[in-house]
């Protein structure tokens, strides 16, 4: 059954940041002009202590979305029911606006790499992932957002492009998408494709959230490290994405080499400014 955009997507939240431990106190004290925070689900799947204490106080003042790294939706192992139970429990407690994880696999034979591994873009993998996304959405009772990951290898037996695979998963499993603009750029550099072609192939009515991040360019290859500011080329792609997808909830994702909150707020202001300009130009056109 075809859906209309307004039926699929949650209302946009504006401009957010990933919630990181070094900023807990500053957020509570200064109440920064951030529209929402994204939390790493696994960091709060603990019985108690500091992270849960601060999250409970921060979510009194800010909308929260949950972002996971361990769902391993593409693994050929059975779905991890314990993990899903924990995720569901946390969801009931935190009441996030939505839940995301990555279109990847993170381990097999019950061993975890704790890294986001790329899938082969085959019909077999597609069907496997679609079945599992449907099962997870049934358990969680909501549409999952799937995020594109950065990758460093290309499989010989892939039968379609990454963007075709991403689009097919979302449409067949009726899920939503978290587009990481930096990851698109990193993979386009590493594999030599056109990032604009990628963005233009993604259905407008499925994109709920954007990630923006930095990376390390090691010459022949870009490593997705999330420990640097967003680069200009990624800002340009972001502007292109806003023109295509509209006012999508956008956040800066910094996982390492975490700067003072003010620096991330300045980066977030740049996102606000770029999005506003792009949307104004569309409106005027």
């Amino acid at each position, binding site marked *: 059954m075809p859906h209309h955009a307004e039926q699929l997507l949650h209302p946009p939240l504006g401009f957010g940041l990933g919630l990181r431990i070094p900023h807990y106190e500053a957020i509570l004290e200064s109440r920064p002009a951030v529209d929402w925070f994204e939390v790493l689900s*696994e960091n709060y*799947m*603990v*019985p*108690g*202590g*500091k*992270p*849960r*204490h601060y999250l409970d106080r921060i979510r009194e003042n800010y909308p929260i979305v949950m972002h996971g790294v*361990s769902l*391993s939706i*593409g*693994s*050929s192992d059975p779905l*991890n029911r314990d*993990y899903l139970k924990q995720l569901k429990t946390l969801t009931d407690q935190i009441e996030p606006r939505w839940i995301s994880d990555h279109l990847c*696999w*993170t*381990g*097999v*034979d*019950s*061993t*975890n*790499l*704790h*890294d986001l*591994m790329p*899938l*082969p873009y*085959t019909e*077999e*993998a597609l069907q*496997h992932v679609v079945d599992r996304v449907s099962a997870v959405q049934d358990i969680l009772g909501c549409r999952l957002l799937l995020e594109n990951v950065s990758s*460093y*290898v*290309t*499989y*010989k*037996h892939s039968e379609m492009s990454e963007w075709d695979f991403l689009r097919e998963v979302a449409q067949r499993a009726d899920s939503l998408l978290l587009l990481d603009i930096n990851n698109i750029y990193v993979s386009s550099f590493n594999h030599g494709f056109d990032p604009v072609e990628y963005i233009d192939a993604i259905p407008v009515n499925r994109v709920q959230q954007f990630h923006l991040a930095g990376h390390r360019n090691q010459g*022949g*290859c870009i*490593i997705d490290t999330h420990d640097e500011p967003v680069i200009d080329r990624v800002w340009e792609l972001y502007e292109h994405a806003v023109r295509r997808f509209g006012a999508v909830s956008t956040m800066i994702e910094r996982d390492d080499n975490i700067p003072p909150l003010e620096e991330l707020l300045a980066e977030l202001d740049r996102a606000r400014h770029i999005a506003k300009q792009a949307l104004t130009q569309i409106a005027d056109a």
Partner: protein
Amino acid sequence: MSALRDLQQDFMTAVFSAKKAALARHLVGTASERAWRIDIYRNNAVSNLSSALESAYPVIVKLVGAEFFRYAAQEYISRYPSVSGDLHVFGEAFGAFLAPFPPAAQLPYLPDVARLEWLCHKAYFAADHAPFALDRLKQVAPEHYGRLQFRLNPACALFESAFPVDRIWQVNQDHHTGDQALDLSSGAATVVVKREMYRVAVNALPRSEWCGLHALSTGHTFATACDVALQIDPDLDPGAALRRWVEEAILVDFSISA
């Protein structure tokens, strides 16, 4: 076996055992290009798991230095794969791993320091529990005192070692400003790990008190705990000790056994 499973198993082999040939046949690119691309994933996996160990074992890092720690971490990662998607539980066996680890044989206290750090790591994320008011104990009729059973705070743990692990732990904290002196021959330690305002602390307890608390924490009654403690120190005042344990929120609840 499905093609997807086949590929994923080959990937795991390439990452954890450095045998790249099986994975390389699935990849595009020249031989050298495929090799360095696989190495990115090897480095990422080892670095993510090493970072998790480093953050759980900061004192061990200080004691052995970053380079030795990285070597030990790599050995540990290859022998103890991460079986949970939850990175918080990775590294539990590091103390047991260090005990027979030949390069660490010169530092016999290392395994116990690691075991203590793991208890601290767990205490950091443990469930919160409100302390209870001493007044509640006053409502218990004196004839029931012997049958009192107590609950240890979920964010507390008891640990004993033949080495002064409490001092080793304390002088290696980033915020430690006091006396740096450390006498490794000062003998055994009986310690309690506690979480105070979301910061984990390690405090020494007199052996008598520690044994009494240990008895309580393993389900014994207050009468038994008193016997154990008084055998070690006949001058101990069990009532005063109990008050301290409740006031410091080491014990957080009680019941009267049948």
